[in-house]
């Protein structure tokens, strides 16, 4: 399927992204601007930006693809992506903002007063960020291939270059602008085609896909994971990972710093829940229509590409091409925005924790901060780009799911207990990170290497493919038990830090130094 429209649409999205990024460059001057837009972002813009950044390839292509191939149970995926923000809102949103931390390692260090905790969480942030960046590259390659027939490697390269250009050029300020815009591009790019296609479907008068059949494999709940074993466990475990993993994703906390205070952070999160919920109404409709019009996938096609193939299958000709071009533009906006957000936050961590000291020593302090940030951006994006060449045939939603599971089993206990529990000790946090990290990363590696997840492996395979249900409770329990056993390593000013985290700004003061 070759489409000039599609290429034009993708080029337009890329050009706008770089263009707005360059506009931001004229506005961003200092390092603080570079990272967090100098904290001048309003709640509405910020919520759009957070949603724009959050709705990734997995949301735009992956959700429809996985609902199409595995059925009703997969509707829980977008629900979980949304619930993650509710958990974030009620457990950590305002306190994290009040902690004054830019990044998760910043928070961990401020709360526990330990450089080693900072180091471990930096490594985890970088690892989770890279795991999450991978499917963005894959998705971009897939989209470009579906629209133009180009080799997937070209799509990967386009995303890598555009993201690097806009991140290195403008940093977070331009990214906030770009991200906010990307949300609306994505919403329009999925809503308009869905309404047109629904209207065409109504005119065709086609029936719903096997929806009325009593044991239809597509719409029957509890059978959606049929390709996998133990569907109920898998559903709950995935939901748990999504609920608690969101707060641990590297690109999420960074955004919260752009809110002026804790109250604004909460309000922003509530708007985000509305915005992403609105978006998630659409992908399942695409999956349903694709079941009617594309009952079987052409050989060699991945289910992730049905979003782009559906218009052509329903209305061959110009209208189909046009709709598919709009969807391709939306998908590209999704890769660009998520990849940019992740790159900014991963680069921020690489820059602060790995580079800055060393580079400054080498250059005798001459090197401007923004230069080392640009170098860090290049590293942040090149590693997953290179890895995307070797990545196995894991679906987009699955790879993203693993990033969530690792985040839920490592950073989330430190964040939640750090915010609410006075007796969290440095040793306890360290033990939790180590145990949760070893288990979740081990399970992920096992799944990627193909030792788990495929059918016929029984409980062992299922437990490894959806690890959160056991790795997360173990991580939480380890943190709590070890903390209780080592009261000596509880930071001395823990109570004072909790004041700052929970007391409203007008009481605690915005710049309290703990």
């Amino acid at each position: 399927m070759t489409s000039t429209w599609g290429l034009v649409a993708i080029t337009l999205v890329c050009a706008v992204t770089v263009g707005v990024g360059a506009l931001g460059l004229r506005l961003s001057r200092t390092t603080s601007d570079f990272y967090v837009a100098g904290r001048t972002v309003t709640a509405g813009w910020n919520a759009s930006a957070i949603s724009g950044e959050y709705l990734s390839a997995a949301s735009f292509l992956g959700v429809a693809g996985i609902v199409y191939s595995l059925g009703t149970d997969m509707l829980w995926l977008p629900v979980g992506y949304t619930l993650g923000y509710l958990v974030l809102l009620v457990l950590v949103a305002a306190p994290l903002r009040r902690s004054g931390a830019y990044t998760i390692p910043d928070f961990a260090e401020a709360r526990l007063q330990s450089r080693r905790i900072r180091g471990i969480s930096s490594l985890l942030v970088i690892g989770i960020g890279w795991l999450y960046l991978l499917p963005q590259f894959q998705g971009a390659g897939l989209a470009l291939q579906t629209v133009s027939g180009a080799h997937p490697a070209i799509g990967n390269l386009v995303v890598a270059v555009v993201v690097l250009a806009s991140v290195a050029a403008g940093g977070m300020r331009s990214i906030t602008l770009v991200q906010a815009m990307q949300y609306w591009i994505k919403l329009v790019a999925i809503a308009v085609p869905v309404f047109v296609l629904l209207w065409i479907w109504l005119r065709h008068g086609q029936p719903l896909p096997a929806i009325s059949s009593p044991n239809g494999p597509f719409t029957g709940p509890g059978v959606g994971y049929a390709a996998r074993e133990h569907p109920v466990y898998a559903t709950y475990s995935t939901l748990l990972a999504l609920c608690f993993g969101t707060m641990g994703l590297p690109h999420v906390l960074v955004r919260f710093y752009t809110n002026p205070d804790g109250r604004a952070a909460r309000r922003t999160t509530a708007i985000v829940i509305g915005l992403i919920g609105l978006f998630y109404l659409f992908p399942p409709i695409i999956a349903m229509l694709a079941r009617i019009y594309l009952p079987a996938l052409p050989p060699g096609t991945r289910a992730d590409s049905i979003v782009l193939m559906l218009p052509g299958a329903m209305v061959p000709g110009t209208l189909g091409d046009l709709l598919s071009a709009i969807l391709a533009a939306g998908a590209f906006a999704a890769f660009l925005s998520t990849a940019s957000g992740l790159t900014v936050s991963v680069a921020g961590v690489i820059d602060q924790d790995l580079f800055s000291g060393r580079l400054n020593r080498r250059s005798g302090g001459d090197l401007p901060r923004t230069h080392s940030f640009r170098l860090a951006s290049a590293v942040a994006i090149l590693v997953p780009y290179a890895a995307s060449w070797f990545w196995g045939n894991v679906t987009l939603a699955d790879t993203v799911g693993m990033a969530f599971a690792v985040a839920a089993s490592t950073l989330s206990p430190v964040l939640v207990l750090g915010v609410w529990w006075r007796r969290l000790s440095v040793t306890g946090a360290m033990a939790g990170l180590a145990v949760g990290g070893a288990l979740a990363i081990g399970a992920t590696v096992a799944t990627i290497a193909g030792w788990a997840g495929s059918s016929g492996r029984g409980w062992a395979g299922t437990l490894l493919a959806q690890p959160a249900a056991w790795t997360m409770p173990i991580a939480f329990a380890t943190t709590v038990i070890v903390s209780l056993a080592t009261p000596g390593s509880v930071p001395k000013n823990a109570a004072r830090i909790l004041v700052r985290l929970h007391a409203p700004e007008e009481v605690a003061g915005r710049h309290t130094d703990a």
Partner: protein
Amino acid sequence: MPETTPPPKRVRVTSPRRDARRRGERRSDAVELTEQTGLGEVYLTALLRAQLRLALAVLIAVGGPLVALPALFLLNPSVARAAVGPVPVSWLVVGVVVYPFVYAAARLHVRQSERIERDFTDLMNRQQ
């Protein structure tokens, strides 16, 4: 972001001195309370408890029904197979109804936790 005017020249002090001083004083009130009197400790513990109770209440109110749904569909397939027009109930609930429900819960939480904070602030101000 509606910023079309050229960026203003950067200066370090961005708020009037008077405001900065007042903020500093207030902060020390709160911090002193927690450090020197047992009272601050009590207030803070109360604030923390109230917020935690609210957070858990919201999580249970939203999580409870959602955890029950897959089990309900599984144990009682006829519920899942019931349909409103051509659309099965399970799709309608998990695909559509969940979102406004979660959004409403989020709005409720924001309102309630701001109320808790207002009460706390009033309490602190009365102590001064």
